[in-house]
């Protein structure tokens, strides 16, 4: 199926099989390997991206469902060489050990702060319930999210991510098969 999807401010037009998961499309077709796969059960949250401004597990969304929609990945949140405030807070608070869960943690933290700009510790933990850290570095992750909340003005969510001028990349089909 032909899809048109905006990822991190760039519009892509591609042919995909209906069974292609969004996470596989992002990683294997677009090379957005910042978004990682940490499990096979939709539990870990490492593949979390934003779809039209709301966090989703990209292993539980089909690429065709992103047609005509806007995706933001961990690779699209820094601006002009400046880390996003949540990225900066993870850096400052040593909120990662192996770093594998970090892309999902950060994308979910940004979503949480868009809904609740000043969460207490319990609200941060509840808001990150869908993201697992196997290093069990939760203490510093929670600290980082609260630190970021202090440093960010409210409303860092969908509006802050909207990109007005989009480039267009028209790509040749890579697979002939698949339903239409």
């Amino acid at each position, binding site marked *: *199926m032909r899809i048109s999807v905006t990822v991190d401010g760039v519009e892509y037009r591609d042919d995909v*099989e*209906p*069974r*292609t*998961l969004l996470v*596989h499309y992002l990683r294997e077709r677009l090379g957005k390997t910042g978004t990682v796969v940490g499990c*096979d*059960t*939709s*539990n870990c*949250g490492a593949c*979390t991206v934003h*779809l039209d401004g*709301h*966090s*989703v*597990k990209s*292993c*539980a*969304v*089909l690429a*065709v*469902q992103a047609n005509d929609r806007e995706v933001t990945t961990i690779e699209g949140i820094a601006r002009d060489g400046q880390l996003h405030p949540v990225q900066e807070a993870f850096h400052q608070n040593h909120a990662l050990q192996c770093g594998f869960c970090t892309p999902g943690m950060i994308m*979910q933290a940004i*979503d*949480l702060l868009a809904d609740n700009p000043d969460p207490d510790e319990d609200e941060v933990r509840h*808001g990150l*319930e*869908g*993201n*697992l850290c196997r290093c069990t570095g939760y203490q510093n992750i929670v600290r980082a999210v609260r630190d970021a909340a202090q440093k960010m003005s409210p409303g860092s969510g969908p509006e802050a991510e909207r990109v007005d001028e989009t480039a267009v990349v028209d790509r040749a089909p890579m697979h002939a*098969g*698949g*339903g239409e």
Partner: protein
Amino acid sequence: MIPAAFDYVAPTTVDEAVRALAAGGEDAKAMAGGQSLIPVLRMRLAVPTLVVDLSGLTELTGVHDDGDSLRIGAMTTHYEVQRDPLVREHARLLCLATDTVADPQVRHRGTFGGSLAHADPAGDLLAPALALDAVMVCAGPNGTREVPAARFFVDYFTTALAPDELLTHVKVPKLTGWGAHYEKFNRVAQAWSIVAVAAAVRVSEGKIADARVGLTNMGPTPVRARGVEEALVGQPATAEAITSAATRAAEGADPPSDGNADAEYRSHLARVLTERAVTAAVSA
């Protein structure tokens, strides 16, 4: 893993969706938010030849005030239900139960109707729907029909929906001013309920005037704890009365034994959680 190949259609009206399901035959599968289906497709535990994606059916989203009841579109997401002011005011039990479903990412995609039609006995919205006497509006090739929750849930992952029928709306009678609580017992983050209890009560002049109690994962379908309801009504809203009524929580239930808990332990949980849920609902 990668799902097996399937054909995909994304209808924009209920009629188109029903026709697509009928044309697809027994190997066609309707997909609402996909938060249960896509993981199952990925593990190839389901191998439909056709997926009918309902996410374009905008006519099935949102909550409407129908006078004595709310009409909730089946494709309304958990995230929307949680925040809906009508649901909050007139069916607060649904908000509270929805808060406990999976995690925020899943609640952004997953839908109220999808959860009910999936009919996982550990799903958190079935017992509240049963306790609230919800009515399921189903659309098929021959028009629409209404099925009360008590007859909608038939067995494990099985509802009264025919293969070419869709759940389009859920009518939820308003229980304005009632206290409510959903008490969920599970072991780890984002896990399903081992047992959970949905309670809604109306207290008038210190007495329990009405009570609804539904149990999650105490059998192949959600269970209405009628014994507890009978024992509560007319009693003073005291700890003694609630404790006494809660002892009847597992009456008539047929709880499973699995790796999480055996049937006897589940019955114990039902009694303990019922006491907690009703106590919280009375003071809510």
